[in-house]
């Protein structure tokens, strides 16, 4: 790697916060709900709509129950961390700003092969899509780079630029580790030893995998899905897009657990996703209306 000591997992986050903070991004906190990706954060979904400028960066814990591997697979996790940056409107030098962030975390583009490889992003559950790339570093996908074209079925006016860094992957790359669980979470001091990513999260992976694949009460979840749907609709009836959207996030996560439990058949899958999409779209529409924006 480069001459400087590789960043620990937490220093990676702090360095990105510092970098994007200096670029004028508001450094936000994670959304305090279970969700599958940073894109679900209202700072992305709702703020991508409407004409107002918006620049923010945040870490979002992302839960993917079906990706859980009981902490046994060195490359897969049921819960991980995304670093998300959203800049609206997308600035003309967004690629350069992004490359600047890679340099800040210690990746030298004359030593490592950085490439923008076509990858168009689509979220069927959010009714959203955009064009962009997956960014490769020596063949490893480290970031999703997207120009949002639509969100919740509405054209983005103006377009936001969205960057999603896979923090664990990036850290494995920077620290040259073969297993996520061996990542240095922090650095040792004279008094206190360093801890690894595995020290912090491995047991979570084990227990949550068992829960998601074997234990979760599916009747309760089907019921909760229904209730979240109803709650979302009642909020929409009262023109409350934010609480409505929170119920959409909840429904989406419940659906993901049901998927992990293997109780949703292939045929039913599309219909569940369609229901979540309707909730998310309804929330986006209510948000547009509340703000007085037209499609």
């Amino acid at each position, binding site marked *: 790697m480069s001459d400087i000591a590789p960043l620990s997992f937490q220093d990676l986050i702090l360095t990105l916060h510092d970098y994007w903070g200096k670029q004028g991004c508001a450094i936000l906190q994670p959304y305090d709900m279970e969700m599958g990706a940073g894109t679900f954060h209202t700072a992305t979904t709702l703020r991508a709509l409407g004409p107002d400028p918006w620049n923010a960066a945040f870490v979002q814990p992302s839960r993917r129950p079906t990706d859980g591997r009981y902490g046994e697979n060195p490359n897969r996790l049921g819960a991980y961390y995304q670093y998300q940056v959203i800049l609206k409107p997308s600035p003309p030098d967004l690629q350069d700003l992004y490359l600047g962030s890679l340099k800040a975390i210690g990746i030298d*583009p*004359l030593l490592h092969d950085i490439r923008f490889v076509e990858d168009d992003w689509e979220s069927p559950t959010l009714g959203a899509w955009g*064009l962009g790339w997956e960014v490769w570093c020596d063949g*490893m996908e480290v970031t999703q780079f997207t120009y949002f*074209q639509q969100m919740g079925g509405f054209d983005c006016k103006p*377009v936001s630029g969205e960057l999603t860094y896979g923090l664990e992957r990036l850290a494995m790359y920077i620290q040259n580790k073969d297993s996520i669980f061996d990542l240095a979470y922090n650095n040792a001091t004279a008094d206190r030893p360093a801890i690894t990513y595995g020290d912090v999260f491995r047991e979570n992976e084990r227990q949550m995998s068992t829960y998601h694949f074997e234990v979760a009460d599916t009747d309760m979840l089907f019921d909760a899905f229904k209730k979240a749907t109803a709650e979302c609709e009642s909020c929409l009836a009262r023109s409350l897009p934010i609480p409505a959207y929170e119920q959409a996030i909840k429904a989406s996560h419940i659906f993901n657990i049901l998927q992990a439990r293997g109780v949703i058949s292939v045929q039913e899958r599309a219909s569940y996703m369609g229901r979540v999409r309707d909730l998310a779209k309804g929330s986006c529409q209510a948000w547009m209306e509340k703000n007085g924006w037209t499609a």
Partner: protein
Amino acid sequence: MTDFLLELRSEEIPARMQVKAKEDLARLFNDALAKAGLAAASVETFATPRRLALIATGLPLATDAVSEETKGPKVGAPPQAMEGFLRKAGLTQDQLIERDGVYFAVVEKAGRQTADVLAEAIPAIIRAFPWPKSQRWGAGSASTESLRWVRPLQGIVAILGDDVVPCEIEGIVSGTATMGHRFHHSGPVTIGNAGDYAEKLRDAHVLVHFSERCALIRDGAKAAAAAAGLTLVADEGLVVENAGLTEWPVPMLGRFDPAFLEVPQEVIQLTARVNQKYFVCHDSAGKLANAFVCTANIAAHDGGAAIVAGNEKVLAARLSDAKFFWEQDLKVALDDQATKLTQITFHEKLGSVADKVERVARLARWLVEEGILGPCSPAQAGAQPANNDSSDKVLDPGLRRGTQELADQAERAARLCKADLVTGMVGEFPELQGLMGGYYARAQGETDAVADAVRDHYKPVGQGDEVPTAPVTVAVSLADKLDTLAQFFAAGMPPTGSKDPFALRRAAIGFLSLLLQNDLRCSLKDMLLATGAGNSFDSLEEFLVDRLKVQQREAGVRHDLIDAVFSLGGEDDLVRLLARVKALQAYITTAEGANLLAAYKRAANILKAADGVDAAAPAPADLVAEERALLTALDTAAPNAAAAVDAEDFEGAMAALASLRAPIDAFFDGVMVNDEDPAKRAFRLGLLARFRDAVTQVADFSKVEG
């Protein structure tokens, strides 16, 4: 004369779009020139991930003055017509020219500066550019009407001779500055003219010629493999894709743990190629080696050691995933996997994949037991139609045992053939369906015949794909396609127009190829009824004959002749049908065949005009020689043709028809059919009817074109 350079610089253009984009740019540019009355001596286009460019040579500096004449109303036309014409032309009546009683508007157009033409054309080309997908970006995207490009457009270089062609689109102003390689060159690169474009960029680590990058990758990858004592597996698709991902391509060899070679090599090749865009290599024995070639976009400080190490790590992670799936899948018997197929819907109206498997297994066994597929291939056995009299089969106990064994294998293979759909590997790499099933079947000790059938039962996939010939494979493949076709047609879901969501056209072509290539003899109707999908398959039979026409077009078989044989009805053994068509085509394209066809058409016309034709009308006492000759010829030819058709001697049938040619010609030359004597007329019409019927035993000549 002068040269022109246009460069449209953007953020990274998807690799797969670059070749087509070059063509589109040349086309739009040439069209714009032509519209202005200009033409270039040559137009060359360039594409890299970050730019699309064009150099036109030999452009005139200005267009010629032209005089455009538009025809107007006649002298004395209604005033409204004249007013409309004048408004459109922007002229007054005294400015028109009158010639031969018609008014003409003549507009003298002065020559235009080529630079002005280009300044207008550039924004128009950009706005009209047909990217497969395009986007909005930046502050301008507050309006959905804002400029769209494949990715954000960043700069325009437009130089005619040594001068900038000034133009602007959405705040992007044309100039002489471009950018070099993203990492190897900082700051702008100033272009002087079209002549120094490629060299200036080469100095800035950008190779603008697509073909040069392709050659570098092709040769460099080969050399990298050779330097390690290996042979590169050539892959032109990868060459082009990597050329579309790099401005300064540097192929480098990396290695992976040889332990991964336990995984089937197709899996390794697929993940290397599709996920990572790497080439793979063979060792001196022609086996897959534990090496790959990646193509970097930089000449790294350290000679690429870090890049190779990084890529090796990525591939290792992917291969360990693949190895995990391989090992997990091997632990589960395919029979157990197959039970999970009840969970997968084949189609909501047609049940689960498990239901389909059950049907295919039954059908595959039936195909063998009916003798449509024999223990030895029909070609070896001497092709004979399936005999419905089962007593024949009882005669040879050895053959019967062979048939039972083959039927068992076909059913077994059919029961396993879809089981790999629920394996981890096929879940990850759907394109490996069939292939993985073959590996897993062999690993659990199935016979080669069964494992091969599982592997190859999707074949042939469309026209031109390899057609299986192994009996077990043919049985399963045929049964699979037959079931799909019959089920979808019986459920009322045939392809319509351009919509063929269940790929039934492809299934039909596969079905036909299997039948014809393997010379499989059977009534189509019997096969369709055996699917159990329904009782009547008229529309599917017609669909298959239509597909047969498409399939045979390449081989030069005439579609009208297929109709001529098929429309006789009763001929639904497609192998025999095609043999018949081919014999017919061979004959009908000779001068003699053409004459016979002409005589047939003449006879048919006369018969159509007549009413009350009786083929058995009695012969009058005074037959003329031509009548007698035709009668004699018919008495021999009609039964001969029928017998030859029965014996599948279609050349013989044609020969029988050929014997009618001279008598019928002579008959038409020497005899008046519509004689005044009603008895004579009735007999002659009867003769023509017998002639028509004789010919129609072989083919319905009314369907033959020409």
